[in-house]
């Protein structure tokens, strides 16, 4: 194999497995994301670039919620008018951030700040709102806005104070390594990591001078929110992948994301360019009363977890949720991770999976292997209703479309100046 591609891939996976994401702060998005700091109306969204009218109804609903939250409009109608003409949209990924589902992030939303100590770069993500009516699934009623305000005013500052009591930030890698042995894959299932996080936050919060009843509310929220850690995992993965992206050679996927219209990937040797193909619609299990027909096409930056080798890639780590991929249970989970093993260049020795004979999580998706085998990454995901405000109607898996990997391979061939002998 080409030494320069393989050598680059090795260097990239080394950066991936040795990443040191640390939670250092919780702030308002505008404090850390430059594009949100000015006076103009800007919203971040999941996936590659997209216009408001191209967005899925839930993502549009999220935008409406964000506009109401920011006070840019007083009602839905005004908000839609504003969004169609006066709001600038830009992908989270272009600003060191990631966002779940719609990924809509506005200037005053609370975001966690994760620093990758390996390179000193930072990544940002909003916090998990829990389940039911939530902004990321397109809900925007008063309860949604009120929760966002509480997260901005209470939850964010409280966690920030707690984190500041740690000598050097709150290290996420050890927690991820522990929770993967407890049945989390960090996309569909985060309950172990969320519990470990809440366990560590408890004493820290108790040591702050925050009012007892506020501490109780914060801890109650952490206790109730099984997926709280998902957003931390996303920011951690983003900070790791952005560090890995500094090596601008090779064929490793450095980001995978979806905006409800397109699935997009970035590849190490191809810089910031997005390679896109139409998204697939997730398949899975639905709450009674809902069906596949009502499922929103795939969206969200959360597939950054799969990019790093978690989520669907590490399905075998989370037997508890494997039945989302089929009724076969454990053997299907094993088959899924075994299949993902075909398209990666190695294993993450720091994320050993007991149910996989302590093999490390899959590490470094190589687009050459994807195109050669036609195996595309599998992504664990929540399923949103197409109708905004309904929220989550199920959960399941979705495949990355092959076409974006093929496009990237063509571009990689141009970069390395090779042509096909079978032209």
């Amino acid at each position, binding site marked *: 194999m*080409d030494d320069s591609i393989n050598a680059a891939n090795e260097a990239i996976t080394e950066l991936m497995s040795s990443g040191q994401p640390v939670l250092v702060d919780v702030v308002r998005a505008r404090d850390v994301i430059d594009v949100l700091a000015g006076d103009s109306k800007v919203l971040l969204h999941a996936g590659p670039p997209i216009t408001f009218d191209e967005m899925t109804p839930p993502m549009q609903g999220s935008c409406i919620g964000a506009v109401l939250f920011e006070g840019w409009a007083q009602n839905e109608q005004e908000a839609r008018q504003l969004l169609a003409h006066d709001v600038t949209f830009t992908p989270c990924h272009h600003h060191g951030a990631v966002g779940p589902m719609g990924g809509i992030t506005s200037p005053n939303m609370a975001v966690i700040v994760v620093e990758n100590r390996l390179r000193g770069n930072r990544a940002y993500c909003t916090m998990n709102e829990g389940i039911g009516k939530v902004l990321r699934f397109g809900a925007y009623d008063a309860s949604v806005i009120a929760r966002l305000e509480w997260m901005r005013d209470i939850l964010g500052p409280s966690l920030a104070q707690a984190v500041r009591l740690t000598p050097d930030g709150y290290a996420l890698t050890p927690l991820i390594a522990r929770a993967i042995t407890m049945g989390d894959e960090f996309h569909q299932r985060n309950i172990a990591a969320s519990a470990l996080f809440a366990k560590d936050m408890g004493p820290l919060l108790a040591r702050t001078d925050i009012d007892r009843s506020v501490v109780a509310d914060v801890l109650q929220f952490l206790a109730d929110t099984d997926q709280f850690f998902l957003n931390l995992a996303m920011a951690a993965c983003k900070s790791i992948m952005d560090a890995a992206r500094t090596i601008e050679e090779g064929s490793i996927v450095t980001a995978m994301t979806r905006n409800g219209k397109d699935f997009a990937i970035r590849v190490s040797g191809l810089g910031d360019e997005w390679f896109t193909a139409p998204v697939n619609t997730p398949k899975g*299990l639905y709450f*009674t*009363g809902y069906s596949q027909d009502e499922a929103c096409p795939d969206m969200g930056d959360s597939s950054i977890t799969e990019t790093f080798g978690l989520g669907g890639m590490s399905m075998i780590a989370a037997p*508890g949720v494997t039945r989302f991929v089929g009724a*076969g249970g454990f*053997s299907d989970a094993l088959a899924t991770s075994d299949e993902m093993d075909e398209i990666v260049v190695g294993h993450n020795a720091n994320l050993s999976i007991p149910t996989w004979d302590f093999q490390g999580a899959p590490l470094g998706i190589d687009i050459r292997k994807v195109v050669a085998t*036609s195996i595309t990454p599998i992504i664990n995901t929540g399923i949103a209703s197409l109708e905004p405000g309904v929220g989550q109607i199920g959960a399941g898996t979705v495949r990355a479309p*092959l076409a974006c990997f093929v496009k990237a391979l063509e571009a990689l061939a141009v970069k390395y100046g090779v042509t096909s002998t*079978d032209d």
Partner: protein
Amino acid sequence: MLTTAIKPNTYQDSVSLMLLSQQLSALPGVNKVSVMMGTPANKDILRATGFDSPELASAQPGDLVLGVDVEDGTDVAYVVTQAEEALKNQASRSASSGLRTARSLARALKIAPSANLALVSIPGQYVADEVAGLLDRDLNVMIFSDNVSIEDELQLKRTAHERGLLLMGPDCGTASIHGVPLAFANAVSGGNIGIVGASGTGVQEVMAQIDQLGGGVSNAIGLGGRDLGADIGGIMCLQALATLENDPTTSTIVIISKPPAPAVRKRVESYAQRLTKPVVAVFLGEKPDVATNGNLVYAYTLADAAARAVELAGRGRPAFGPTQRWIKALYTGGTLANEAAMLIRDQLGVIDSDPAHAQGYVLRSGGHEIIDLGDDAYTQGRPHPMIDPTARAERLPAVFDDEGTAVVLLDIVIGFGAADDPAGALVPAIEEGLERAAQAGRQVVVVASVCGTSRDFQGYADQVAKLRDAHVTVLPNNAAAVRHALALLATSSRPSTAGETEPTPPRIAQLLEDGPTVLNIGLRSFAETLATAGVATVQYDWAPVAGGDSRLAGLLRALDNA
């Protein structure tokens, strides 16, 4: 009708409950069922999907909530019972066959690093590239696929030969290695007959016939239909012959093929002449001019070939001493004795030195002796030996003690009128005789056939078993027993050429000695059959590179090799 049932303090994870909801909703008489834990968020979902009720409001997060909407006349309790049953029986539906599956060669070999044989059944156009990669990794290969060009076959076989590997095929439908049937094959007894075959069903028929005749197969090595043609020149046929010559479990070899190209035929036959093990050749489509030619025995049909092979296959090469040169036959059936005499005369070209046939001798030539104990000379004042086996038992010790005896040839006639247990009556004398001969440093071989059927009251199988327990080699009929006796003498008298054949290359020797660990590439059913039979197998779900897009495949190669 809408009902809410609550099961307090019953936790189930949401995946189980979503599956359960689907299952219950499909029950007859049920409109829809939604089962969830009673958390606030779930209660919102239940309300939004039409399951609101006063009971729902009181449900706690630790309670299991069943929202049940049934048609009139359906008992809600029935649905609840079904739910309880389903939760009790959540084990995965299918037990895994344990067959590990890979989607790339690299991963397949990671799963099964000890694989020593690849079984390839993929579209012919991709075979050459794929098999070249397998040979590079020192794997023996059986190619089931057809539509491989003759040029590719030649190239692959040359490579395999240089690397000391077996390459069976292309278009090789049948093989059996170390008792493991590969692709299309029958379950046959193990044994000492090795097969080299350029034909799938030809190999199957010979293997099946050998089994039916009471023989067994050591290894069957397939060649593919073109190996003995002029282009390939028998590369793998010669390798297979050398392999079986060196294989300690094989004592007789069968070659099955269409008539080879003349030059190839010459090469293969002259090679077969040099082997220490007898070779039966069936070149289907031509009638053999001669029955034997030195070490080669020719057969006209597949069944003939199987029969000849069973006759020839002894328990390895007999270690007869210098004085042991003769067949001593004690018959109870006159016609059987005469048939034996006929075959021996024909085969050895000997002249009967006692045409008068006094004292029941139907043949006496050199030291060869065939005596019919049913002759008048032996039945005066005594019952016929078919009725009273003691007459023959009494004569056996002298035969074993004779220094000239190599083979003792016997007939066992059962059926109405015959003794209750003719085989059992001979066993003590045979065992004692063999023991005494052994003590005197002579290995004597006893060969017999049983004339009778499974319907006979003595029981055909029972009589055969008694003889085999006494180390008697039992052949399916009298002629076969005689030919087997002759083959033992011929094999023994052939000068040993051991050490003259090239040693078997280590990867092939290891395959035959340890048995196959199979990397199955293509048809999954082959792998499932092997795995079910307990053979270490990994399945490689092969697909063409880049889904068969040759331009992309070219780009990938270029990126890999730039």
